[in-house]
């Protein structure tokens, strides 16, 4: 047990300890968090209100509560699956652990423990937003809130165990691929897309797609929703550990509470035992083979032709691309976040495309003359908003160099050129995601192709500008010296700042676009206004890109010199 706890402490410290930042001001970071918090507040408030409303309808109903626990677990699974893969199966520190006098099951349980603690944090957030307002709405007693404390520890168990099983075949496949970085990255991306798609479909299936006109009448919602919730609650008995937890949470008598608590703990423990028994032998093999996979010998023979380059800027860009995408962890982080945009558009199209009485919402929208203006504007703003923060490639251009940064410092190339190469790489990557999104938008959402061309021009300028800003921010405060890229991302604040940059860029571009959209409708769909709708933001984003580029290069040498390798 001592070994287990010591190892757990070590792994936990490695995972969560933030590296100290020398003499940096935290005001900007706090401000960014406050602004982002305010931006997300309406969404959180609406979820809280819905849960409260649901509580008032469902009352003290273990089945409905069990369903809400399942929703919480779904979120925990989505956010935690890749932590399970990287923590448990993608054992980067196998060489440091295997020579220790500990049993493989200890290593496995420690890794599982770290993933579990990650999931406890996500669970805490879901409990506050989902279960607490439900309890208030349902007027549940003090025992419900007290029971939420052990529930915090029980709820993440099921997603953890499901995640372990789901990730196992995928991790085996990844392991079989060996040291081939790009193949690993592609496999990870395919798994990510398949998982997200499957998850969305499952959620739609559980939630039901039936539509009823009586929903329009707010007074009838309660009458319609109640039997629906009852029906849903009855199904939840099949997820028995959850149902027992919900029974304990809703218990009004001691025997009911004791039975529910004992059974949920027992069932979760039993599931843990089964999962460990099932996965441990495979894990053992994988743990050892991670060390055997480190040498992949090319069968190619050296030829003089293989040593050639294509100019400084191009070589810098190509080397950067190779460096990122051949590292499966970095490659996945960078590509995985980029495909979020097209994925969301596809899900949006599927959701809006569902037919009710033979007509889909998307068809109804397309029939409106304003659609050709409003839909592309919405797309531009959406891509501007999330494009920056999802582009890991542009958020950590210097940090991702890590121990190799000295090479960039020792080569006789002006740093401005190195940064330009990095900004171009991240802008190009973002543009590829934008192009895929635009094509999907043309095909699935019926957005006119000519506006898609403008969309891409606007996004190219906006992306370039934003990437210049994020690049400079990383130069000012890079996170070098990491041993695991995922840990580096957790410690860095760049993505939060990037969300703020995306938000500001969206407001700057969005304000005139929305105004011109209104003008387009008001002038009875005037062609010149429609042209202005695209030309004005093009000019604005061009200026934004130019100013951001100038700002990036201002005093850059000073910051570059300050980076101590």
């Amino acid at each position: 047990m001592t070994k287990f706890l010591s190892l757990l402490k070590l792994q936990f410290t490695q995972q969560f300890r933030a590296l100290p930042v020398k003499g940096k001001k935290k005001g900007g970071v706090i401000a960014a968090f406050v602004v982002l918090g305010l931006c997300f507040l309406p969404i959180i408030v609406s979820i809280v209100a819905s849960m409260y409303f649901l509580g008032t309808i469902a009352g003290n109903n273990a089945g409905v509560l069990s369903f809400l626990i399942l929703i919480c677990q779904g979120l925990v699974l989505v956010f935690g699956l890749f932590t399970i893969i990287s923590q448990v199966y993608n054992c980067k520190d196998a060489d440091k652990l295997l020579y220790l006098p500990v049993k493989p099951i200890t290593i496995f349980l420690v890794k599982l423990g770290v993933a579990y603690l990650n999931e406890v944090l996500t669970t805490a957030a879901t409990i506050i937003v989902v279960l607490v307002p439900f309890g208030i709405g349902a007027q549940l007693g003090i025992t419900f809130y007290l029971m939420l404390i052990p529930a915090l520890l029980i709820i993440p168990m099921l997603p953890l165990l499901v995640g372990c099983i789901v990730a196992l075949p995928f991790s085996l496949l990844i392991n079989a691929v060996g040291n081939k970085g790009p193949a690993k990255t592609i496999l990870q991306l395919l798994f990510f897309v398949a998982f997200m798609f499957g998850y969305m479909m499952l959620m739609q299936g559980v939630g039901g797609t039936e539509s009823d006109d009586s929903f329009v009448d707010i007074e009838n919602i309660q009458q319609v929703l109640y039997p629906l919730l009852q029906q849903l609650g009855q199904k939840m008995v099949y997820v028995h550990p959850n149902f027992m937890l919900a029974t304990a949470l809703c218990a009004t008598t001691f025997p009911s509470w004791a039975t529910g608590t004992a059974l949920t703990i027992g069932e979760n423990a039993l599931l843990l035992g089964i999962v460990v028994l099932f996965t441990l032998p495979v894990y053992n093999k994988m743990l050892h083979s991670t060390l055997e996979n480190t040498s992949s010998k090319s069968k190619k023979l050296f030829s003089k032709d293989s040593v050639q380059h294509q100019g400084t800027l191009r070589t810098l860009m190509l080397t950067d691309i190779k460096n990122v995408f051949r590292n499966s962890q970095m490659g996945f982080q960078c590509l995985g976040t980029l495909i979020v945009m097209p994925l969301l558009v596809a899900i949006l199209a599927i959701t809006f495309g569902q037919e009710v009485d033979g007509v889909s919402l998307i068809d109804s929208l397309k029939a409106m003359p304003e659609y050709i203006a409003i839909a592309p504007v919405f797309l531009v703003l959406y891509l501007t908003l999330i494009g920056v923060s999802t582009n890991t490639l542009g958020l950590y251009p210097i940090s991702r160099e890590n121990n190799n940064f000295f090479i960039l410092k020792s080569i006789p190339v002006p740093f401005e050129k190195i940064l330009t190469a990095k900004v171009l790489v991240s802008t190009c990557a973002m543009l590829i995601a934008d192009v895929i999104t635009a094509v999907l938008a043309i095909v699935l959402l019926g957005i006119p192709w000519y506006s898609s061309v403008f969309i891409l021009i606007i996004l190219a300028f906006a992306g370039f500008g934003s990437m210049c800003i994020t690049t400079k921010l990383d130069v000012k405060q890079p996170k070098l010296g990491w041993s695991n890229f995922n840990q580096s991302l957790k410690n860095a604040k760049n993505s939060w700042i990037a969300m703020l940059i995306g938000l500001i860029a969206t407001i700057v571009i969005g304000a005139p676009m929305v105004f011109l959209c209104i003008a387009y409708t008001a002038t009875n769909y005037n062609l010149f206004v429609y042209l202005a709708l695209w030309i004005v933001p093009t000019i604005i984003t061009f200026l934004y890109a130019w100013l951001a580029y100038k700002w990036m290069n201002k005093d850059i040498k000073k910051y570059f010199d300050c980076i101590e390798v």
Partner: protein
Amino acid sequence: MISINNVSKTYGKSFTKAVDNLCLQINDGEIFGFLGPNGAGKSTTIKMLTGILAPDCGTITVDGISLTDNPTQAKSIIGYVPDNHEAYDTLKGTEYLSFIGAMYGVNKTDLAERVTKYADMFELTQALPNYISSYSHGMKQKLMVIAALVHQPKVWILDEPLTGLDPQSAFKLKQLMREHADKGNTVFFSSHVIDVVEKVCDRIAIINKGKLVAVDTLDNIRQDQSVSLESIFLSITTQGE
């Protein structure tokens, strides 16, 4: 020629100077050995010499070019072998050397010829098409040495270059260093292996706790010929402890 004038360096908010008022002149045509115990400031000095770290004060010129005023020009005449063998693990050996060639403006024909020559010399030809991540410690070191030489720099700055090299490769590198210096170029060489420094270097400097404690030819430092450099090094670096 390398000229280091009153150079000091402090890391972050530390009160201790990693390098304290260092003054050195390394002449053309000599192999200059740089000795010191762990944490003495050797690597910090080398990082400042290569432009990786900026000194807090003082000036460094390489072949008359200031590293502060013209870093790009100064770096282009330096060949640097780091002590940590770090390179882009995700690249292949050939790709890394192509990258270095592009950065130093070596044309493709010259680059191919030089890579072939040095790879044959250090017996790395077979491994060049493989990923660097699959290289052993010594192979990575050989790659870094080749990368430092492909652009035919006038000044070589080598931080523990022999670490991890097999005896054949270490011998060849020492020969190359001698030939390079004999052509009127400069070799700045740091090592923990005192025997090697004793045999290879024309002049040596000993640094301790960031301060230069001795700089001269080996014979002048070792006034009594029967005393080994090792004894002198130990006596100088432990003085005052």
